[in-house]
């Protein structure tokens, strides 16, 4: 059908375009230099994005620590330790977190979090820590949603068997259920990571955007996405191509993450269509 073809071709065009714009400059500067050079001085023709790659990695890692800790904690609680009525209130509330615009998160970060870090922990406040916390909160609902589904999909028999053998609920959870749901939870984490890597606005507001590699979590940082956003409107010629090349890098990272998630979720047991459907509907939340 025409519609499908146009959709597919539209998406294909974007991919091709980004690569077309970005690859030439990578060739010009040299792949090694581009990725590994420390110097981002575009007006002088230097395009090393290493500080930004490190920045993205650190911020994402930090975000995942928070996102997974809180997200998984909520998920386990909701599935096995809370009766259905409160769940019906708590779960949508957590999902609501996903709907708040990223600029609002960034704003709250600037108004509340950054001064707090600056006054009580040191440094300028605009930091890896601030970005990680803000991103962690943004990623949390994704992790929770998908983990909940993974946990709920573990057959009741597993739980009942474990309890019959004399284990407490918590023992059941951490020894049996979590292991059984492992692939689903990994998928949740990976998708959360994808979201963290891609976030732009909130990070620009709280991370400080320096072009130096951060040495501690209290140091400011610039991520790959912030780099693009900060300079896109201004850039011309080589500079713009370099930004597209950054886009290419991001694209590749996302593809890798998605492949891993796909491989991991294939290992999940075949399930009834409705659970799978609900899973994906909530995936998109």
């Amino acid at each position, binding site marked *: 059908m025409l519609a499908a073809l146009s959709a597919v071709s539209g998406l294909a065009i974007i991919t091709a375009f980004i690569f077309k714009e970005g690859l030439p400059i990578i060739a010009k500067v040299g792949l090694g230099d581009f990725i590994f050079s420390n110097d981002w001085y575009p007006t002088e023709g230097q395009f090393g994005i290493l500080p930004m790659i490190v920045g993205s990695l650190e911020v994402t890692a930090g975000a995942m620590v928070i996102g997974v800790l809180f997200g998984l904690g909520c998920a386990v609680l909701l599935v096995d330790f809370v009766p259905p009525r409160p769940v019906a209130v708590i779960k949508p509330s957590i999902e609501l977190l996903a709907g708040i615009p990223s600029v609002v998160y960034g704003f709250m970060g600037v108004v509340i979090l950054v001064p707090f870090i600056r006054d009580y922990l040191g440094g*300028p406040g605009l930091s890896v820590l601030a970005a990680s916390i803000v991103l962690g909160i943004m990623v949390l609902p994704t992790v929770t949603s998908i983990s909940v589904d993974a946990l709920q999909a573990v057959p009741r028999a597993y739980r009942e068997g474990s309890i019959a053998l004399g284990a407490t609920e918590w023992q059941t959870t951490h020894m049996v259920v979590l292991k059984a749901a492992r692939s689903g939870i990994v998928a949740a984490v990976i998708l959360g990571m994808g979201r963290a890597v891609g976030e732009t606005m909130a990070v*620009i507001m709280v991370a400080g955007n320096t072009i130096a590699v951060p040495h501690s979590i209290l140091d400011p940082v610039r991520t790959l996405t912030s780099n693009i956003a900060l300079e896109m409107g*201004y850039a*011309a010629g080589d500079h713009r191509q370099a930004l597209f090349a950054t886009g290419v890098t991001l694209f590749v990272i996302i593809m890798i993450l998605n492949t891993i998630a796909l491989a991991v979720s294939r290992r999940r047991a075949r399930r009834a269509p409705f659970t799978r459907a609900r899973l994906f509907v909530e995936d998109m939340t």
Partner: protein
Amino acid sequence: MKWLIGIAAIVVVLNGLSLILGGGRGDAVNAVGSTSIQPFAEMLAQAYEGSHPDLYVNVQGGGSTAGLQAAANGLAQIGMCSRDLTPDETKEFRDIVIARDGLAIVVHPSNPIEGLSRDQIRRIFAGEIHNWTEVGGPDRPVRPITREEGSGTREAFVKKVMGKVRIAREALTQESNGAVKELVRNDPAGVGYMSLGLVGGELRAVDVDGVAPTSANVVAGKYPLVRPFLFVTKGKPSETAQAFIDFVLSPEGQRMIENEGLVAAK
């Protein structure tokens, strides 16, 4: 899901209505570019539209270099640029000075520093000075705050102060005058550069080379850090663009500019 379709229909109808009702708007002028000039341009545009209801001036930010590009590729009739044009650029564009703006070096209100020399400022932003005591200030770390690459304000700053010296990697980067202002306002250790016209009362702007950053000093040519606000066009401006430019350069327009803290073009 009938009601979903219903809502979609309402949205489409609303759009259509506004399209019809809004038709006949006359020529629009797009002014794109410097975030420093943007607030003033918006204010001028509103005044202009007030007295010319058929005309419509569309002001966007994006940055000085973006403004030039927009003028070059037709996206905008007027590019707004807050620095001098490079020799290459003067070949391609026509520029008109609409105002002069000082570059203020701003610090937190609690910072007692009265003034800095250009040399000191350069060294601060190059990352060579780490504590305010080194320049006669309180015992606090020095945190330079800069604008992003491609910003007209940054380029003006680099040209007038830094010269060939690079701004330190560790300098915090913010994406607009307002963001710099907010940051310096909240960080006792911070120091940044921004448009003098936008400083307002919450920050302290230090003397540079002994000269106080006032409009009077800018007009008199005593304050060293001054940059032009330019309206740039590719070739001759279109009629509608020219009309707006004329308004901005008129006594009324220039008066509005001065009221907001800038210095008139003359």
